[in-house]
C-alpha cells in the first residue's frame, strides 16, 4: 500500500523542516501553494511562520475556502504555532480572522516576545516515553477549549497541544527538534481517519 501523501502549506515559514520530519516518519510529502496542490494531498500540515502574513496569503491565493471545506469533510490537519493560530476559532484580544477548524481560543505571543522563547521538557502522555523537547518561539497558548477538544499537553497550566477529531494543534515546533514522535502521531491520526 502506498504511504499516505501529506501536504505542507508552503506559503511562508519553516516548510522544509516539516517536510524532512514527515519523510523521516515515513510519509510522502507535497508542498502546497495552490488549490490544485491541495487537491492532491490526504492531510495538511501548516508550519510555523507569521499568522498575520499567512492568513492574508491564504485569502489572496484562493486557499482559505478549499482548506476549510476539506478539513470539515474530515481531512486530517495539524497546525504548529502559526498553524494552530490559523486553525483556531478565534484569537484573544485581536480581531484577527482565522479558519475556525478547531474550537479553541488562542492567545498570540502568550509566553512573551522572542527573548522569552524557550526549550521546554514537556510531558505528553499521548506520545508515551520520555518528555518531549518542545521548542516555543513567540508561542501562543490555548486559552479556551470547547467541549469536543482534548488537551494533550500543558505548559505552566496552559494548554499547548490540543486535538479535536482529526485536527491537531501544537504551540511548539516538533519540526525543529529531530524528535519525530509528534509527526508519527499525526501520521497515525491519518491512518485512523
Amino acid at each position, binding site marked *: 500500500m502506498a504511504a499516505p501523501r501529506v501536504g505542507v502549506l*508552503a*506559503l*511562508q*515559514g*519553516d*516548510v*522544509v*523542516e516539516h517536510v524532512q520530519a514527515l519523510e523521516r516518519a515515513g510519509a510522502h510529502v507535497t508542498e502546497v*501553494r495552490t488549490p490544485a496542490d491541495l487537491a492532491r494531498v490526504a492531510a495538511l500540515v501548516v508550519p*510555523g*511562520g*507569521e499568522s*498575520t*502574513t499567512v492568513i*492574508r*496569503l491564504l485569502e*489572496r*491565493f484562493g486557499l482559505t475556502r478549499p482548506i476549510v471545506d476539506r478539513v470539515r469533510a474530515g481531512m486530517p490537519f495539524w497546525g504548529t*504555532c*502559526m498553524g494552530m493560530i490559523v486553525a483556531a476559532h478565534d484569537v484573544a484580544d*485581536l480581531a*484577527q480572522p482565522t479558519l475556525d477548524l478547531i474550537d479553541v481560543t488562542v492567545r*498570540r*505571543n502568550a509566553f512573551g*516576545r*522572542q*527573548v*522569552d*522563547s*524557550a*526549550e*521546554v*521538557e514537556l510531558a505528553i502522555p499521548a506520545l508515551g516515553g520520555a*518528555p518531549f523537547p518542545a*521548542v*516555543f*518561539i*513567540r508561542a501562543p497558548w490555548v486559552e479556551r477549549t470547547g467541549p469536543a477538544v482534548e488537551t494533550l499537553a500543558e*505548559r*505552566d497550566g496552559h494548554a499547548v497541544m490540543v486535538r479535536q477529531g482529526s485536527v491537531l494543534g501544537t504551540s511548539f*515546533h516538533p519540526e*525543529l*527538534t529531530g524528535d519525530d514522535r509528534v509527526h508519527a502521531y499525526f501520521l497515525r491520526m491519518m491512518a485512523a481517519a
Partner: protein
Amino acid sequence: MNGQATGTETVKRGLAQMLKGGVIMDVVTVEQAKVAEEAGAVAVMALERIPADIRADGGVARMSHPALIERIMKSVTIPVMAKVRIGHIGEARQLQALGVDYIDESEVLTPADDLYHLDKAPYTVPFVCGARDLGEALRRIAEGAAMIRSKGEAGSGNIVEAVRHMRAIRDGIAELAAAPREELVARSRDLGAPLELVREIAANKKLPVVLFCAGGVSTPADAALMMELGAEGIFVGSGIFKSTNPAAFARAIVDATTHWQDADVVLKAHMSIPEQAKAMDGLDIRQLADHQLMASRGT
C-alpha cells in the same frame, strides 16, 4: 516546570526559520509598520531613517531612539527588529533590555568598532548580520549570529551588489561541498573561518542558519531573482517607502517572494502596481566613492 531554557541556539535560529519565504521591511513610523503588516510582511525593521536617507544625509548613523522602536513594537503583532552599530555593546544591551525580537548588527549604521563585531552568543536576543561572501558569513556565525543576510548595497536601489554577494556565498558553499576532506583545513585558513564550521558546510551543503537577501531590492522581479539565487527570504529597506506607492510595492514584493517560482504570479504582482507609480530612484554603484559604500564596513 523543570528544564526551561531561553536564548538557546535552537530558539534564536528558530525564529529566523519561522520568517523563511517572507519579506522584512524597513519602517520609520507606526503608520509604515501597519502598512507593512497589512501587506503581509513577516517582520519589520524599526529605524529612524531608511538607508537611502542615511546615505543622503551623511554624518554618523546610530541606533534609533528606543521610544520609536517601542511604539512600533506596540503597534504590530509581527516581530520587530532593530539595528545597532557594528561592535556597539551598549546599544545591543539596550535593545535586548527593550525586548526587540531580533538585532541587526548592521553596516548601514556607522561602525562603533572598526576591528571587532559583537560577541553575540551570550545574548538572549538573536542577531542577524550581513555578509558579502562565505568567509564573512561564517565569521559572523562563529560570533553567534543566528541569521545571515547578504549585504548588497543598502539604499542604492540597485540589485547588482546583492546578486554579487548571494552568488559569492552560494559559490563558496558549492566549493566546500565539492572539496576533498584533506583540503578543508587550508580552506578554513583561506576563508578566515573556523574549521568546525567549514566541515559542517562541506557536509550539509548549506549554512547552519537562515540566509536572507538585503540591499537593493526594489521591484517584485528583484525579489524573485534573489529567491532564485538561493535567498530564503528578503529584506527590503528603501525599496518600499522610497517608492511612490508603498502599499502597492509592499504587497507585490510579498506576493513575488511567496511565489517566486511561478512567473505568472510574479507578473501579476508587478501588474498590480499602478503604472504611474515609480520605484525608488537607483544609484550606479560604480559612481559611489569607496567611503560611500556601506557593504565594505565590518569584515
